[in-house]
């Protein structure tokens, strides 16, 4: 360990041993709780070879679970992107009564247990729920069906986009919008040409986070799903079922697929972050 003064040294730099210690702690911790388990998932999935894993994934129930997961994310994520844009626009660019309450409400899904989130929908739409009879009379299934799964997923993921955009929009203020409007731009034109380009990276980031959560949600979806194979099982639920049936290769193969989807999301996220400086951020 040399403490030779280097030209790039800064006043806030720690001594070499402290730096090594901090980095070491982080790496060991990451290895223990993240890398080893993740590697185990793939190792377990491939224990009987790639073919066995592919067979496990390539059966109708597993494929149905993949489809349902993608469908749920495809509905929940755009919905939350629109909601997040509206909410952050309302909060960052306008003054109104009850604003702190609205901000607190947006955070609610973060603080409520996902199981409770699922139960809320059972209470409202279930057979014994408020709208239960009416739904049965009209032959509409919400609970133990796809609509319930989508609703529960939307509930759990809706803070992500708004949380990402609110601070960004607040920091940017309203003067660019005022400039555009004072030059005769309409509200919609201003939104598309001025506001949206300024928040597009934040929006992408929020969408990716919300997508990752939508695909991975277990608790809330588990309550409303009913676990009907091939119909209302999402990937996380399917993993649990297979695991409970001691089909370890199958469970880990589907889990590995879920991990791969997460990795794709992370790679996209990193790409988004890397692309950011090129657009000439940091205008002032």
């Amino acid at each position, binding site marked *: 360990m040399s403490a030779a003064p280097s030209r790039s040294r800064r006043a806030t730099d720690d001594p070499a041993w402290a730096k090594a210690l901090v980095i070491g702690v982080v790496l060991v911790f990451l290895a223990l709780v993240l890398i080893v388990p993740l590697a185990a998932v793939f190792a377990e999935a491939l224990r009987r070879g790639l073919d066995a894993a592919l067979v496990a994934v390539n059966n109708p129930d597993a494929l149905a679970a993949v489809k349902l997961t993608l469908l749920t994310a495809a509905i929940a994520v755009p919905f939350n992107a629109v909601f997040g844009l509206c909410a952050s626009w309302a909060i960052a660019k306008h003054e109104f009564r009850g604003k702190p309450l609205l901000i607190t409400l947006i955070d609610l899904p973060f603080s409520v247990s996902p199981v409770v989130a699922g139960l809320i929908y059972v209470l409202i739409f279930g057979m014994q729920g408020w709208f239960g009879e009416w739904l049965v009379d009209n032959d509409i299934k919400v609970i133990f069906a796809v609509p319930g799964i989508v609703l529960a997923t939307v509930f759990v993921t809706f803070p992500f986009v708004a949380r990402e955009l609110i601070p960004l929009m607040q920091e940017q*203020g309203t*003067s*660019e919008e*005022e*400039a*555009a*409007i*004072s*030059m*005769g*731009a*309409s509200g919609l*034109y201003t939104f598309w*040409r*001025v506001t949206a*380009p*300024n928040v597009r990276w934040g929006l992408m980031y929020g969408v990716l986070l919300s997508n990752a959560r939508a695909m991975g949600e277990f608790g809330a979806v588990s309550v409303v799903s009913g676990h009907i194979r091939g119909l209302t099982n999402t990937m996380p639920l399917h993993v649990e079922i297979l695991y409970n049936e001691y089909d370890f290769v199958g469970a880990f193969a589907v889990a590995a697929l879920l991990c791969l989807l997460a990795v794709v999301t992370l790679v996209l996220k990193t790409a988004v972050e890397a692309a950011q400086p090129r*657009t*000439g*951020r*940091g*205008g*002032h």
Partner: protein
Amino acid sequence: MTISIRSVDKKFGRYPALNKVDLEIADGELLALLGPSGSGKTTLLRTIAGLEFPDAGQVLFHGQDVTFASAAARRVGFVFQQYALFKHMTVAKNIAFGLDVRKGKDKPSKIEIEKRVDELLKLVELDGLGKRYPSQLSGGQRQRVALSRALAVQPSVLLLDEPFGALDATVRKSLRKELRRVHDATGVTTIFVTHDQEEALELADRVAILNKGQIEQVGTPDQVHDQPQTAFVCGFVGEANSFEGQVAGGQFTAGALRLPAAGVRDGAATAYVRPHDFVLDETGFEVRVERAHVQGPLTAVSAATLDGHPLEISASRAEAALFQGAVKIAARKTHVYAV
């Protein structure tokens, strides 16, 4: 474009930002709104722009009531303190924005817009930088882009909110001259907000001084400096020594200090004397010189009256040697205001 502000009131919550403000702005004038922060100067500017709307009163453009007209309908050019350039657009696109948003036959052709952008870039001495992004420009250059973007729509009035506030001193000085030049070249009625009195006095045809949501005085830079109508203006514009005392029979007294105060009613009063209005005078009152140092062509003297009230005197450089120990001085001009 003449602009009339008629008893405009504006409150933010309970906080009164503007209180019965009246102001007339002549066609082609360059007017400064000068005041400390919180005085309402930016609110007044934004009310003229149509970015804020008054609770009471009227705003007239050329005799026409525009109190509740939008900023676009008023055809104002607005320059924001932090420039508010569109970060993801090139300089040329920024400047062309106000022309690009037009529709139908009002919209100039692509070639006309390009020509106009080039003209404006030349006007603010940024030729050739049209393809850059705002983040690739210095602060001064960004402010010039903001200025030309505001001018692109040929505004009826140009409004600038603390236009030089975020720039360093040298750039500020050169941009000041530039704004004056652009104003003279285009002849557009221009109003700018500043808290920097030097900027206001150097640049503007007339200065309106605001304090606590009211206009204290409107006048040429000379008028507000030499004939301040209120104690606030006297203390805010230019440097001044202030003394708290009493007026009796046209004479102001504060301890050992006596100053003429003709026409001021008897009672408590505040007197202001500018540093350069103190002169050596054997018939005057005595002060102790604490420090005298040469500042370019002048001598800056720190002194105190016999009862300890500090004061600043500005004398010529030649007089530097005379300010030593105890000297007698008199004020050749005083401003006394009843409290």
